[in-house]
């Protein structure tokens, strides 16, 4: 079952929350930092869910009011109705409190939402029972000959049992609910009944017969129900729904007349109109297709009116009123949505269309226009072409543009601000956000800290594909460290390519000469060719610790990122050498598969080790290297630590985010 549900403003205030079990705040915090801020979606999730500790999190945004709705539940459970829950709660919450939220400017508001939420949860669970396992429940019930009497005793006793096991959702007392729900809102539903053309008369007797038939004999039932189970998330959903079902039953004591509507809609309706019901579940387990639900409704009523009808307690009565109010609000919200859809395709009335058009025209250049997705379409397309021209990978460009567009939808333009300039500003922000590192990249400081607090050398290893400039960049870093009077050991762990060790030897000799008067010390640690690189690296680190070196720089063999065998040896390497920083050298060349390289190297060090940064080489030869650069960072979330800008030892730079964004947008 659900562990926690929160409604949060983007400014960080928890407006409303309901917790069924204690969940640490860090769970939702990591969703916000990882997915919303750093835009790192978990593999396979496609941005639809997020797993943390033993929890799964799902969410939805209401961008126009700046709200986030998050549901947290145990990953073991496969709750199929979470998406619908989020959607319904969002619509309801926004409709109820839109005004207050907009006035409060992102701070706390009073929102007595508990009972609405409980009611939504109940109806969803009842529906889940209806789609997944309504049959056994119904077969247990005792239908009288007239179909009028429903014995509730077996239900109730069972419900009590269930309650003892799972007391997370006792039917709560509902004092003083429904102060807003006018009786009017309930009327139309019943009024519709007689005039409804689609209403099918099903006699209670035939219904009873249908219900009492053993499962096997119903044609096509077994196969179809299996199908619907599959849709609702596999058999474990089925299993767990055993518990989930019970509370629904607690609340589904027979009620009078119209009150049966929801109950029936969820469970019996499906049975009565078998075909429709199965379509309905086929459309995604518990369908979120409200219109379909709408069309199902009258038929369901035809049944309950004639079949079920007993008394109810005062508490239940209030409960149902709330349900009606919720239904009403949701219906209106949906209607509004469809109306907006319709408006987009064509103006409804000429006069109103003209007026709206004129207003929109003014707002275009005066400002104060609330942006829709369509408004930004053109500007976004323009900026996308621009990004592609700057060699940003298509995949990255599309995703960045999408997230910018979503962030803009629902926003108002400032006075005399055009859509284009707003899109541009938003894009700059997005690019800056991508390039800004989340941790400190101050290498010197870290080296100092490690030396001071742990008195051990700081280990940096350099990886990358062949010929990308690993050794050159390593020497540049070494030169920079030497200038800061550090004692550096270079470990030659490329035991593969002949000439690699000799190349490093030359570099080491040069560096020694250059740095002699600066006060730095450099030494080369080499063990020839053919030996295991991981072991040499380990020995080098041990040697450096013994000789009081400040830094160990490890050069590794270049490897193709799709060479399984060589890539897999990196995991052992990372374990043995245990570097503080693993840096990947990548080329900024257009058309090189640097993004894929970045991805593969990032995944090569095992589950708990990732790359720590990129060194982008040959920036001097490539005009538009920023495009490649942003694609790499975007794909992996790994920051750029250094840029190589030339052939000299001094040609190493750090990335200036502002400058890079400027280059991209120019």
């Amino acid at each position, binding site marked *: 079952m659900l562990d926690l549900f929160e409604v949060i403003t983007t*400014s960080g205030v928890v407006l409303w929350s309901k917790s069924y079990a204690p969940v640490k705040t860090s769970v939702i915090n990591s969703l916000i930092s990882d997915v919303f801020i750093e835009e790192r979606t978990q593999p396979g999730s496609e941005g639809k869910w997020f797993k943390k500790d033993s929890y799964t999190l799902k969410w939805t945004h209401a961008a126009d009011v700046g709200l986030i709705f998050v549901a947290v539940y145990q990953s073991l459970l496969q709750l199929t109705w979470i998406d619908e829950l989020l959607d319904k709660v969002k619509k309801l919450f926004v409709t109820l409190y839109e005004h207050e939220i907009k006035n409060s*400017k*992102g701070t706390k508001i009073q929102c007595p939402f508990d009972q609405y939420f409980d009611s939504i949860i109940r109806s969803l669970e009842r529906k889940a029972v209806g789609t997944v396992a309504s049959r056994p429940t119904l077969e247990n019930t005792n239908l009288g000959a007239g179909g009028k009497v429903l014995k509730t005793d077996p239900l109730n006793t069972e419900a009590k049992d269930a309650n003892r096991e799972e007391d997370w959702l006792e039917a709560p007392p509902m004092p003083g609910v429904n102060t807003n729900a006018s009786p009017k809102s309930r009327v139309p539903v019943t009024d519709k009944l007689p005039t409804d053309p689609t209403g099918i008369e099903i006699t209670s007797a035939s219904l009873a017969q249908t219900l009492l038939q053993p499962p096997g004999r119903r044609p096509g039932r077994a196969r179809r129900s299996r199908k619907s189970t599959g849709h609702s998330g596999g058999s474990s959903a089925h299993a767990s729904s055993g518990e989930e079902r019970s509370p629904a039953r607690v609340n589904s004591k027979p009620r009078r007349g119209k009150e049966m509507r929801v109950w029936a809609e969820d469970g019996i309706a499906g049975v009565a109109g078998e075909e429709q019901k199965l379509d309905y579940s086929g459309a995604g387990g518990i369908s979120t297709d409200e219109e379909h639900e709408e069309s199902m409704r009258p038929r369901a009523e035809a049944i309950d009116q004639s079949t079920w009808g007993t008394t109810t307690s005062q508490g239940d009565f209030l409960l149902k009123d709330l349900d009606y109010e919720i239904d009403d609000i949701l219906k209106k919200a949906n209607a509004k949505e469809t109306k907006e859809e319709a408006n987009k395709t064509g103006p409804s009335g000429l006069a109103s269309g003209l007026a709206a058009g004129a207003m929109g025209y003014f707002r275009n250049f005066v400002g104060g226009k609330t942006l829709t997705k369509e408004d930004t379409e053109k500007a976004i397309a323009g900026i996308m072409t621009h990004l592609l021209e700057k060699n940003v990978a298509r995949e990255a460009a599309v995703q960045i543009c999408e997230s910018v567009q979503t962030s803009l939808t629902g926003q108002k333009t*400032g006075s005399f601000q055009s859509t284009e300039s707003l899109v541009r500003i938003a894009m700059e922000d997005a690019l800056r956000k991508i390039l800004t590192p989340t941790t400190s990249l101050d290498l010197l400081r870290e080296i100092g*800290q490690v030396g001071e607090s742990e008195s051990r050398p700081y280990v940096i290893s350099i990886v990358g594909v062949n010929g990308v400039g690993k050794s050159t960049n390593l020497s540049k870093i070494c030169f920079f460290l030497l200038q800061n009077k550090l004692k550096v050991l270079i470990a030659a762990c490329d035991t593969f390519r002949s000439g690699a060790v000799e190349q490093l030897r030359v570099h080491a000799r040069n560096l020694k000469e250059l740095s002699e008067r600066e006060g730095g010390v450099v030494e080369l640690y080499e063990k020839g060719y053919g030996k295991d690189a991981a072991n040499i690296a380990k020995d080098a680190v041990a040697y450096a610790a013994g000789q009081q070196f400040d830094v160990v720089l490890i050069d590794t063999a270049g490897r193709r990122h799709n060479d399984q065998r060589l890539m897999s040896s990196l995991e052992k390497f990372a374990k043995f050498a245990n570097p503080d920083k693993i840096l990947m050298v990548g080329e900024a060349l257009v058309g090189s598969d640097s993004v894929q390289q970045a991805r593969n190297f990032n995944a090569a060090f095992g589950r708990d080790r990732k790359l720590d940064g990129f060194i982008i080489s040959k920036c001097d030869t490539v005009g538009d290297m920023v495009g490649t650069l942003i694609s790499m960072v975007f794909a992996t979330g790994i920051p750029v630590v250094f840029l190589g800008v030339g052939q000299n030892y001094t040609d190493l*730079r*750090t990335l200036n985010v502002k400058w*890079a964004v400027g280059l991209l947008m120019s």
Partner: protein
Amino acid sequence: MASLSPQWEFLGIQFSLTILLISLLVVVLIPIVLSRVLVASTSKTGPSSVVLLAGPREAGKTSFLLYLQEKTLVATQTSTTPSTVKLSPTALESSKSEDGDSSAFGKPFHLKDTPGHPKLRSFALTTITDPTASCLGIVYMLDSAAIIAQPRLTDTVEYLYELLLAVQKRYTVLSETTTTAEPIPLLIACNKNDLFTALPSAKISSQLQSELGRMKETKRKGLLNAGAGENDDEDLEQVLGDDRSDQITWEGLREFGVDVSLQSGSIKSGSVGGWTSWVSECLEA
């Protein structure tokens, strides 16, 4: 009528100067009025008196803002957008005041809460550097318990460094144009001292100063930025404080446009008196 204003006849229609003027006025005014009406309250012109709330993640910035309104610790999550709230000075009093008398005291002020995530720090930094926003003071909030761990300390100091540098830049610009550039007051609010692992404020103060000094040193020794010197006006690397030594002291920063003070407190246990009186002073100055 005709005697009061000259008239012309054109294509048989009479024009009076008054009518002409009025219509001209209308033409000029319509867009302005329209923009006022349409844009209404959402105009981007910043509020006049802002106290900025900045600091690393999870420090309690949002909690502090909400505490001033609700007088209790309200549940929060990581912020992703800033929020500016208009408060009356009565919000700074220890108990929740009645709604009615809020207008009776002093001028209202704005408190701007900003996200602490490293990727979102530009919200706070631009508030400082933006020449149009008048920033009355800055509350830099930190977690006095978490600061024991090295990565958290680094993060806290790095953000503080950037913030101080932004203040310094603003001050340099201001003192070039005006003669009366006052240093901005900055309060380092050491939150969560209800936790038994919390460091005392004196210790935090000395640690921050020495860490800032070290950061200055490595920044100075560090590599050049790519693109530095290409457009050499503003992007030229600037170091915090004077360039004669790597030492950073709160007193030394005064001449670089920031007046630092430091106070411990806790939102959870409601001991925020030091901070609120600091804000009051800030408003009066």
